[in-house]
Structures are given as C-alpha cells and as structure tokens.
C-alpha cells in the first residue's frame, strides 16, 4: 500500500537529496571539468566553473608525455585477466560446493573467507622478496596472479551464493528426462548460471582495477596499471591540475560506468551474502 505523500514534502526531499548528492559527487565533477581546462584556467582564482575555453589538449598531452595507453592496457589486462583466471578456478569449486555439499563445505567456505582478512602488510615482505628472486617484480603476470589470489575468496563466495539459488530439482528433472551430462550442462545449467557469473566478473574487475596496495608495491613502470601511474603524479607534476585531471578522468571513467551497472551485485558481493 502506497503511503500518501504530500507534494511539498516530495519536493523538499528532492531538493535536499539532490543537494547532498551533488556535494558528494562534486570532486568527481570538478575533476572532469578541470580536465577540459587550460592549466591557467585550472588554477584560476576565483575558480572557473563552466565558463572557460574548453579544450581537449590535456588528453593529447597526457598520452604524449607518458605511455598512458600502455598503463591503461595494463589495467585492462591485469583486472580482466586476474578475474577470468579466478573464475576459471572458482567456478568448479563453487559449483561443487553448491550442488554437492560435503560435511565440511561450510567450514571450507569460512576458511576461504578468512584468507581475505589477512592484512597485506603481514605478507608484503615475503611477496616482495619472492617476486624479486623469481623476476616477477614489475611484470603483468606477477601482479595478475596476486590480484587473482586476493580476490579468489570473493569470487568463490559470490558464485556460491548465486549457484545455491539454482533449484537442484531442475537438474533432477533434466536427468529424469534422460538428458546427457553434456546437454545438462549446455542447456540447463549454463543459462541459469550465466547471470551470476557475469555479476561476479563485473564486481571483481572493478575491485582489481582499483586495487592499490599490491599494484603500488609490486609494479613500477612496465607493468604498472593506472593506480601506479596516477600515483606518480604525487610528485610536483601533480601541480599540473589539468593534466592530472585528464589522466584521472580516463582512469576512472570506464570503472565508474561499469560500477553503476553493478550496484546490486556490489552489496551482495562485498557483504558475502550477509546483506541482499
């Protein structure tokens, strides 16, 4: 039953909520606006909000001063690669835990989750030393594997909570009808599992894209994704606000768009199913 709402209070809430939302969003908006300014306009006082000479100069310059595109591709390769690798390992595990739970399955799941809670500082040193002696420092392979490992528990968990919602009666019914194992997988299970796998993929690409402990510590230049590249702007170069903004806008835009599509999965994935 819909509650009766007066038009006044609806407008009141609208104005208040939009005000707060714009305030929270403002730093992002400001970054995007600044990326289209000249360096002089970027530090103008009083600040120029909309009325300045719009230019795309900064985007061109960011690329010409540094191999921006390579860092961008590194981010894509590392985040997508680590997620796909994680899925490859996690799908069978989550599948078997959801459909053929053993006595210890719950303990196993909890244990997997507990590995996620190990603080990075506790294992930074050995990882750094191992990477150094294996020649994995600043390689895409090395950082991809590490990101896969830190996200693996989340991937298994998310998949498990999705798979568990697939009614096992459907499987039995298909078997009764004499479906072969191949048919069972292709025609019955896959269509039901795909949405869960897709959301898991989406959320974990976002998490890996933004990961900024291991990427900062284990990559420096060749394999550096955008997190590391942007961090290099903390030197005086960061005072070139317009270029910093252009580099930042390009770094956040793809994930911002993906993120908005994944709001629902975000809650579920990050709370391990505790809040749906």
């Amino acid at each position, binding site marked *: 039953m819909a509650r009766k709402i007066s038009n006044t209070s609806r407008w009141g809430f609208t104005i208040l909520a939009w005000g707060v939302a714009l305030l929270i*969003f403002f730093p992002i908006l400001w970054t995007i606006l600044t990326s289209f300014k000249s360096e002089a306009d970027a530090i103008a006082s009083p600040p120029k909000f909309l009325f300045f000479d719009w230019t795309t100069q900064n985007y061109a310059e960011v690329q010409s001063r540094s191999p921006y595109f390579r860092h961008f591709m590194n981010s894509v390769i590392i985040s997508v690669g680590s997620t796909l690798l994680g899925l490859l390992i996690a799908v069978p595990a989550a599948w078997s835990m959801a459909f053929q739970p053993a006595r210890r399955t719950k303990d196993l799941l909890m244990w997997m989750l507990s590995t996620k809670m190990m603080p990075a500082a506790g294992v930074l040193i050995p990882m750094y030393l191992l990477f150094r002696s294996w020649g994995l420092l600043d390689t895409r392979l090395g950082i991809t594997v590490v990101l896969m490992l830190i996200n693996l528990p989340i991937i298994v968990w998310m998949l498990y909570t999705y798979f568990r919602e697939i009614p096992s009666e459907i499987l039995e019914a298909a078997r009764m009808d004499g479906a072969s194992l191949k048919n069972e997988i292709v025609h019955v299970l896959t269509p039901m599992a795909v949405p869960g796998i897709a959301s898991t993929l989406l959320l974990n690409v976002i998490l890996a894209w933004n990961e900024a402990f291991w990427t900062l510590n284990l990559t420096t230049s060749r394999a550096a994704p955008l997190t590391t590249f942007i961090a290099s702007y903390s030197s005086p170069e960061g005072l070139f606000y317009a270029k910093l903004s252009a580099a930042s806008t390009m770094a956040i835009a793809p994930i911002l768009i993906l993120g908005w599509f994944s709001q629902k999965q975000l809650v579920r994935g990050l709370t391990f199913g505790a809040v749906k």
Partner: protein
Amino acid sequence: MATRHQNTLARLMVAPSVLLLLAWMIVPLGMTLWFSFQSYNLLSPGMERFIGWTNYQYFLSDPAFWTAMANTLLLVGGVLVITVGGGILLALLLDQPMFGQGIVRILVIAPFFIMPTVSALVWKNMFMNPVNGLFAWIAKAMGAQPIDFLAQYPLMSIILIVSWQWLPFATLILLTALQSLDSEQMEAAEMDGAGALSKFIHLVLPHLSRAITVVILIETIFLLSVFAEILVTTNGGPGYQSTNLTYLVYSQALLQFDVGGASAGGIIAVILANIVAIFLMRMIGKTLE
C-alpha cells in the same frame, strides 16, 4: 544420491581453489613469521641470524610504533563514525519519495568506484592545496587564512578523504537493508501514533543493526590496510603524524630495508586484523545456516 565417483569429482573441483589459497596463506605468512625472528637487513645480505624476540622488543619500544598504532585506530574509528553515521542519515534520506531517485543514488555511490590514488591526489591538489586548492579559495573568499590541511592536520585530512570513499559503501548497504523493512509494520506503528523519532529508535534501528554490524566489520578490515591514500598525500608525515601500521611496515621494509623489524610489525598487524576477523566470521557464518 551422490556416488563415490561423484564425490571424488566434487573434491577435485574444489581442490585448485583450496590449494592455491592454502599456499597463499601459509607460504608468505610463514616467511613473515620466520623473518620476524631474524636479524635481516636487505643492505647487508648474508648476515641473517636468529635473534629471538628482539625485533618485537625493538618494534614495540619504538615510539613510532605506538604513534602508528594510535593513528591506525583513529583512522579506522574516525572513518567508521563518519561513514556509519552519515550512511544512516543518507540512507534514510534516499529512501524517501523524491524525483530522480535513481540519479541521486548513482551520484552518491560514485566515489566508491574511484581508485584510491586518484581520489587522494584530487583531494590533495585540487581541494586541500593551500595555494590553488578550492578550500583555500573558499577560505580567502570568506576573509580567512587558508589552511594547509595535509601539513597541519594530516591524519584528519586523510580520514576525510577515506571517509568520502567509504560513505557510499555504507549508504548503499544500509539503504538495501532499509528497503527490506516491512512497510506494514511501519504503518501499524504510525496508526499507533508513533512519532518519527520513536519509529526510528524502536523499528528502523533494530532492523538495521545487522547491516550496521556488517558495514563496521567489513570497513574495518579494509581500513586497517589503508595505504595508497597515505603514500600519495603525506608519505606518513610530517614525522609520523599520519603513519598507520600498514604504512610503517612498508617504510620499514622497502624504504629502510629492515626486513626483520618490518616482519615483526606485519605479524602484529595480522594479530590485530584477526581480532576483527573473528567477529566478522561469526556474523557471516550465520547466513550459511
């Protein structure tokens, strides 16, 4: 009925995940533990030797450690107060009828998707910079002296930046929980003449308690490991004023090359995180029932 054959298959399917995570847990953690009892400096290779608890004694008696410990707790506590308090208020607001609710939601959630190095740098340069930052301009416009936030209030500034990143997370989860509140119950309370405040205290807050606990625990896990925001804004300074435990371990190991000392710090961080983790695991474990 699962046959023996199927059981074996099921185990084989789980095995890769388990073995990988087991290796990821045991190998580096074991090494950290081992290093923490060694005198081991990267600048003098080949001089490693067992020194018992000395690293721990050294680390625990170092004033920098206690500063870092206090900063860690202040950072976690400060961000939690801001994000949970603000998150409840925001969730209540976003749950009200309004125009353009979907867009408002999208705008509020956005900061969560910004990579930490970007948000820290944007705040540092474009907002908190004492010369060209927006805050400095606001201060000057109001006739006040601009504040050099990161030099004068380094930890507070970092708390502000991190809170901005995590407020959306708290809001989103609390809003999700709020939307599952039984509207009939609310109406019944209204019929009984319950005021807004009493509805909030007796109905909404108990309903949210579980989600609030989850938010607190998960944020704590992540906040104990805040790193990038410190690295690109203050480098832990001035002095140790904005160094947390994670950053201290990093600087001890990779800037001062003291593997032994840093490892002792790492083990202490693990113990700290474990205390939180135990509570979180209990909470999540209940959802499996």
